[in-house]
Structures are given as C-alpha cells and as structure tokens.
C-alpha cells in the first residue's frame, strides 16, 4: 500500500514509513534520545529529498518532545529558567541555521553539507560514547568505579552575567547556556535534529547540571526550537511534509512506549555502547556515500533562483 506525500512529491510504501517511525521510536524510547539524528538519514536513504527530510523530522520531534516533557514535568524534572535561557540561544541559532540552510539550498551544496555535518557529529559523538561506555563496562567488571568530583572549576566559571538556577543548583554565567543553545539551534535547522545528543552531554559536562533535570530541560527547549525550525523551513523553502510528519509521529510514539519498557531491562553502559555502535554505523554509511563514485555525477534541481 502506497501513500502520496504531497510536499516530497513522491509515493512511498505506507508500511515502510510506519516501520521506520516505529523502529526509531523504539530506539529513542530505549536510549532516551530524540532519534532525529537517525530518522533524518534513514529518510534520505529511502529517497525522501534531504531538505524535506530535515524540515519534516523537525516537525515530528516537536511532537515527540511534547509527550516526553509532559512526563518529566509531572516528576518535577524540568528547570524552566535554564530552559528559557537555552531557548533564547536556540531561537537565535535556529534563525541563523535556517538562513544558512536556504543559502546552501540555492547554491546546490545543501545535501553535501547535511551529510558532512552528520558524518562529523555522529562520528565524534559515536566514538566518544563508545570509549566512555566500554571503559565503564570494563571498570564495573573490575569493580573499580572511580568517584567523580562533585564540583569542578574551569575557565567557564569566570565569565560575566552570572545567574542563579535553583533547580539545577548552579550559579553560572548566562553566556554558557546561551552559547550552547545557539549552537544546538544551528544544528537543529541544518541537520533536522532536536540536538539532544549534543545538548545533553554539554549540560552535564560543561554546565554541570544534575542528570535528573537534564533530559526534561533539554526536551522543554527542543519543543520550541524545533517548532521554530519547522516554521522557518515552511516559510523559506516549503519543505515541511505534514503527511510524512503525521505518519512518523503516530508510529514513533508507539515504538517509544515499547522501547521504554525494553530500556529498563538493560544496563546503562550496555545501552550506551549499543547506541554508540548504531551511531557509528549510520556515520560510516553516510561517509561511504560521500566517498564512493556516485552512479550519476549529474543531479537536477529546480532553477529560477
């Protein structure tokens, strides 16, 4: 059974799209990640134009983040003040990112830049996660768990505009979350991701936020940044396919619920090393496609720019 996607302007197999949404949802539920960084490349692999994939996945992430943040909010795990500061940075970053996206699209380098960004980010994060989780696995085997310092001082703590974030038990410069928000906003607009995979480590290791509020706060901020990205892409390039977004939303939500139940049965280090492997596989596939000689050296795009 095929379904016609009005903005992508192609017909796709309904069950393929639902299956992909379900599978990514399952993984995101298991690993507690948004899944945009896997969904966007997968859509590109099955033939959805990269620009449409990026814009549509942003739309789907908004939905996924809303359902996620409500659960965290009920448990009181959202630092709204920190979320707002991150968000201001995120809005600025996503406007800049959408502007870059539109320019790249008109000069014909968008697909390349999307792939390159993915290779760089997935590669870096995948290998970092793999080393970290394998180390942790080895350490637990040996029974030597290193204790982390409770509080560390870096050059970051010398920055001006200090603000107090009660929920995160922090007194730090507002420039840090603003900068992180802006960076993630740019990534979000260009790569079609929520940016959780950059934001979460940054919040833990750079800002020093307690792990309990990190996920909820990042989800809170992702809702608004991806909503903004959706709006900007809809206005600038008309690449948001709501039909595709609806199919992905409905299937990924179900997958995520099942995934959450699986996730509780696996150990943290095992989960992270599995996720790291998955990230590295996607990264290698994208890198491989950039390097091998394409079937056709020519590509056709819409003219009149």
């Amino acid at each position: 059974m095929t379904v016609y996607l009005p903005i992508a302007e192609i017909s796709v197999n309904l069950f393929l799209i639902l299956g992909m949404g379900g599978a990514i949802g399952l993984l995101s539920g298991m690993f507690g990640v948004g899944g945009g960084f896997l969904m966007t490349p997968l859509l590109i692999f099955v033939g959805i134009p990269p620009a449409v994939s990026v814009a549509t996945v942003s739309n789907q992430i908004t939905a996924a983040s809303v359902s996620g943040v409500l659960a965290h909010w009920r448990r009181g795990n959202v630092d709204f003040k920190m979320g707002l500061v991150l968000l201001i940075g995120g809005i600025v970053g996503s406007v800049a990112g959408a502007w870059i996206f539109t320019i790249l699209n008109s000069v014909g380098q968008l697909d390349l830049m999307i792939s390159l960004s993915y290779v760089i980010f997935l590669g870096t994060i995948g290998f970092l996660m793999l080393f970290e989780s394998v180390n942790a696995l080895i350490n637990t085997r040996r029974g030597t768990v290193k204790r982390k310092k409770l509080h560390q001082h870096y050059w970051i703590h010398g920055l001006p505009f200090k603000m107090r974030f009660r929920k995160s038990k922090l007194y730090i410069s507002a420039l840090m979350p603003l900068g992180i928000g802006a960076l993630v906003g740019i990534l979000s607009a260009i790569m079609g991701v929520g940016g959780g995979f950059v934001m979460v480590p940054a919040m833990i290791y750079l800002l020093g936020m307690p792990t309990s509020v990190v996920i909820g706060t990042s989800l809170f901020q992702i809702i608004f940044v991806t909503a903004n990205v959706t709006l900007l892409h809809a206005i600038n390039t008309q690449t948001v396919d709501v039909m595709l977004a609806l199919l992905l939303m409905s299937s990924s939500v179900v997958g995520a619920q099942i995934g959450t139940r699986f996730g509780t049965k696996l150990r943290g280090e095992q989960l992270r090393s599995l996720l790291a492997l998955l990230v590295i596989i996607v990264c290698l596939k994208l890198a491989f496609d950039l390097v091998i000689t394409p079937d056709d050296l020519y590509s056709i795009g819409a003219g009149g720019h």
Partner: protein
Amino acid sequence: MFFSTRLQIKTFAIFYALALTWAPQSHAQSSLVTDISSHLVSVTSDFTGTELLLFGAINIDDDEEGPNRGDVLVVVRGPENDVIVRRKERVAGIWVNTKAIEFARVPSFYALASNRPVQEIAPPDVLKRLRIGPSRLNFRAAESEQEKLPFEEAIVRQKSLANLYSDQETAVYFLGDTLFRTTIAIPTNVPVGDYIAEFYLFKDGELLGAQSSPLFIKKSGLGRQIYDFAYDYPALYGIAAILLALLAGWIASAIFRKD
C-alpha cells in the same frame, strides 16, 4: 496560474503555425481525427500511476494503393520549468557539486510513441524542428553547445530513469488501415500541470497533418489541499504543522500515561 495559461495558449499557437507550415497543400484531403481516453488525470494520495489511451483515425486520400498507409507519431509534453543541472567532482576525496548549468523551459514530462523508429518516418531536420524525441528537445542555456551537451544528456538520462521521458518506437498500433491507438504510461511521480498531447501524421517523410489537445494532470483530494496550503500560505502552514505536532504529542502522552 494566469501566466501558465498564457504560455499554454502561446504553445498552442506555435504548434499550429508549425503544423500548417509543414503540411503541404497536395494532400489537402488527408485528415486526422484524434482523442484521449481522459483529459484529466487526478493524482490522489493513493495514486499509483495510470495509463492513457490515445487513439484516432487517419484518412489519406491518395491515388496510390500500397502497404504504406502513413506514419503516426504521438507526443505528450508536460509543463516546462527551469532546471539547474549540477556536476559532481572529487574534491579532497569526497564528491562535491562544482559546475552548474541552468536550462530554461525543460519539459517536466515527455513521452513519444510511434509506429516505427522516427528516423525512418521523417528526415532529421524535420524531427529537430518539431522537437520530436527526448534527444531532440534542445534545451536552452547560456553556455555553448559543446559545454551544455553532457548536461543535456544528463537531463534526458535521469528523466528517462524516473519514467518521465520515454521513447517507444513501436507503441502505435494500427487497427486496419485507418484506426490507430497507443498507450502512454503516467507514472506515480508525474509532475502536475497543463499537458499537451500532439498527434502527427506523416507519409513518405512528409507531414500531412497535426492535431493537439490539452491534458490536465492535477493533484486532487487531501494531497492537493496540503500542497496548495503549503505554497500559498507558508507561515500559516508552518503554524498548523506545529499545532498538529503539539496536539499529537499531548494525545500520545495522555494515552500512554501510567497512573
């Protein structure tokens, strides 16, 4: 919309002018009557492609009796738009778009059917002038003939792969001496817009008659409405997409809430 209709009228005008110039007076009695099974194709959300039947009757009022009863060419052209063709080159190990050529008014769809290979039907200059066959479409660009050739070939190659350009040399069948028919496949990915179906009647390399009729390929149903909404009111569309996502997220959370 207004512009495209005017363009269409202009295309018709050029077509008739060409056809008249090429129809010699000696065969004034020869006639060509044609029609299409449907002048409107609706692309709905479950559209999986369709086939159009193009048929007609020819009447060659000729003195000579013989097996050669004339040749029929059927052409279906889609709406024209400007395209940019880019060529990749290896830069520092990876493939990067480097050279680009912009072509004006490239048909988004082009199907040709004939009863035998077109080279046997008409001389090359006539085929070139009438732009018959994917390789004779002669796209316009600012670059020199030599420079643009590989880019032109790329358009024809890729559109053919996508089933948007086709050249079926033996797809026109005669039923008896006067009736003919052919089918042209309309693929799933067919571009929407105003199409034109052209019928040419040749005998011994001479154009005896030509006919054309309009054909409309439209998106209909929900797909059409979504597409129009996205392009006519992009900001509202974006807001609607966001609201939809917020609603979907909230519903999901409500359904799966564990209390």
